[in-house]
């Protein structure tokens, strides 16, 4: 009987190990394709000692440079942003971050307030798959799932990505047991420029009411910050497209006024920040490139120092050493992208 139980246990363990390896093979690696997918998981290697936390969608991870903030102001920061990161996902990523550290300032980009319902399974996976498992992740999954998704497919990603057997490439083998570092404390760099040109007028909406679910989670973000003694700053990144309607802006302004929060709409500060939409965007006004991100960070760093009292920590030797490494990687990627731009006329890979 004992022998039989031992045999069964060995068989089950071996099967589980095989399935685990298969799962590792089949899940997307986000190393050379869909690189934004790596952002969610890169945080954990850089957790701790971040005085400023940015949370939001692509408008945060392309528009702010933590390395610039460190260089000019000695401000340590991390950007927990992922593509189309929804308001509730930002809340849960904040909660997740608080398991590792307590920043002094949280900066939330309000574009996601336009989405009051789960949107897209693919974007959910980019945001959630990289999170380490915890009660927070489970809550994030349940809040984010579209109708076709299941919690089981998040616990066992093999159930979602099994069909990738048809799309396996060398990337899946090369990155089976390692990841490619691509971001700079959550900032995804692009050095190329594409002038904005004439951006079409916004399309009128039948209803500009921001959804209840967004307010609910913005309240949670605010209350969590209050409990932890964190200063919350609401921002709207200076994108030209998609439209950020005045009617939405007004609701956020009212909310900020009601709770005594700072709200900065960077679109209205283009002159102050020095953003030039001919040279500072890589996709005609949706996202800033490196030049634009550094300009914005230069302005915002001053704000963080003077208005939020964020310390200059360049005198901390250990931190300085850490950030020196980050700067080295930053310069390496910058040079690699400029090189590709010179030689091939376009930036098609991050490094």
């Amino acid at each position, binding site marked *: 009987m004992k022998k039989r139980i031992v045999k069964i246990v060995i068989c089950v363990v071996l099967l589980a190990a*095989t399935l685990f390896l298969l799962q590792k093979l089949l899940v997307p690696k986000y190393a050379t394709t869909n690189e934004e997918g790596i952002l969610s998981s890169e945080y954990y290697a850089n957790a701790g000692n971040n005085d400023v936390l940015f949370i939001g969608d692509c408008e945060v991870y392309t528009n702010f440079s933590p390395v610039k903030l460190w260089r000019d102001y000695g401000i340590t920061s991390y950007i927990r942003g992922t593509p189309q990161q929804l308001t509730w996902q930002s809340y849960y990523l904040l909660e997740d971050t608080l398991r590792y550290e307590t920043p002094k300032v949280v900066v939330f980009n309000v574009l996601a307030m336009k989405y009051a319902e789960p949107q897209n399974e693919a974007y959910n996976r980019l945001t959630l798959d990289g999170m380490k498992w915890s009660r927070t992740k489970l809550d994030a999954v349940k809040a984010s799932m579209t109708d*076709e*998704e299941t919690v089981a497919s998040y616990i066992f990603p093999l159930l979602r990505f099994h069909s990738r057997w048809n799309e396996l490439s060398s990337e899946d083998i090369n990155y089976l047991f390692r990841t490619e570092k691509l971001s700079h404390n959550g900032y995804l760099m692009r050095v190329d420029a594409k002038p904005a040109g004439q951006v079409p007028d916004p399309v009128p909406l039948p209803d500009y009411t921001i959804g209840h679910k967004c307010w609910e989670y913005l309240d949670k973000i605010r209350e969590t910050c209050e409990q932890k003694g964190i200063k919350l700053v609401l921002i709207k990144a200076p994108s030209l497209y998609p439209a950020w309607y005045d009617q939405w802006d007004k609701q956020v302004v009212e909310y900020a006024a009601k709770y005594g929060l700072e709200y900065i709409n960077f679109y209205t500060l283009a002159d102050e920040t020095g953003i030039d939409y001919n040279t500072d965007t890589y996709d005609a006004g949706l996202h800033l490139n490196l030049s634009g991100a550094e300009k914005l960070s230069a302005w915002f760093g001053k704000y963080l120092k003077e208005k939020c009292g964020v310390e200059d920590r360049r005198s901390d030797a250990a931190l300085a050493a850490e950030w020196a490494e980050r700067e080295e990687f930053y310069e390496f990627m910058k040079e690699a992208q400029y090189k590709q731009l010179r030689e091939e006329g376009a930036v098609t890979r991050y490094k």
Partner: protein
Amino acid sequence: MSFVSLGFLLFLLILFVLYYALPRRFQWVLLLAGSLVFYAFASPKYLIYIAVTALSTWFAGKLIHDAYAARDAYIKDTPDITKEDKKACKEQAKKKGRRILVCCLILNLGILAVCKYTDFAIGTINSLFGTDIAFLRFALPMGISFYTFQSMGYIIDVSRGKYQAELNPAKFALFVTFFPQLVQGPISRFDQLSQTLYSEHEFEAQKITQGAWRAMWGFFKKMVVADRLVPVVTGIACNPDKYAGGYVLALVFFYTIQLYADFTGGIDITIGVAKMFGVDLAENFDRPFFSKNITEFWRRWHITMGTWFKDYIFYPVSVSKWMLKVSKWSRAKLGPQLGKRVPVYLSTILVWLATGIWHGASWNFVVWGLLNCLVIIISQELEPLYAKFHEKCAFSNTKGWDVFQMFRTFWLMAFLRVLDVYRNVPLTFRMVPTIFSSKGWSEMFSGGMLKFGLEERDYIIVAVAIVIFLIVGILQGKKPVAEQLAEKPLVPRYLIVWVLIIVILVFGAYGIGFDATQFIYNQF
């Protein structure tokens, strides 16, 4: 709750643990509770229907049992009873039993008929008379065709005195609602199933393991093959204007493979799951595509349905007073040779008409049933010719000829089955002949078959699976494959099972991106 869902697997796990943890005398009660939970999840609004069938059939059985018991008691307690009195007493009980049976049949077959066939009747009336009667869209409770026929088989057997009625309503309810067989059958007989269903089962590791293997084999067929082919089949069948000619032949072939994998896979899951609880269900398929002719095919395909129609329609109709009159008349008018065929063929036509109607509420299924009947009758008529051919031709007694017959039977059944997928009968008869035209052939082989969401690798998987089906079918001819697997040493045995699990998880057509309806929607 679909078999192919995590919810079902979780339900199964919980039920399995409780089944063998609780005292054995509670096992059948747990199965009943589990079956009701399964039905409540899968088809909650329609729980009342299956409850009505179970209750009414049980009650009818009890009434018949009481009538027969009263008859037996009277005969026993009347020692000086005359022959005539005894006959009259038996006749009276028989009549009472028949009345109860008829009421029960009318109620339950009535519910089935009204739920399933009202709109069919309305549609037919509208087509024939140009009326515009609105469809009533009655509810179709899950498994109604299966559990109704199973219950009616029971009450007919009880009224015939084949066995005693089940007096415990809860036990009878389990017979009707036993969850593995609700979705696709098999249609069980009470005397066979009750023995295994109500008895106490020890934890038999070997039996449970073999049941699990059988279920996994079923999941492989359903998830890797059947579900993978859905977009091709629906893509071709729903767009007859776009996909004709060669595509129709592809449809005939792939639909047959899909149907085989789906139906036999579902039954494998059913039988495997039941076996894990120690319950032995009747086999419903016996390597049907190894059949050499259509008659043999219908002895190997959907066996329990075939035997149900044989026992409860064919034989009773054949020996009925009415049919005896027809037989007498036909022998007189048409001579003994032809005359003796008429009642047999009439009964056969009736059975196939009923079989077609049972399969679905549309003329496609009626015509399909009658075409099967036609082929069977023609085969029987040509029997003497075949016998002469076998005498004269040596090749016809070789394995090669057997293979040819199997190939021929496969295609014959496949072509008949294409009536399942086209919108209506005229369209089917319009599309099939286009196979012999030049339409679609060149397009099909230059990327046409990749337009349905399947890639080349998907077709390779289907091809490999068909080869596996053939190999397993050949092996099954010698001994049940599960038993052969159990005899293998540990390492190859577990390796085969592991590979099966991995193949199902990796190559299964499930999850996001495999929603066939989504594909069809996206086509436009």
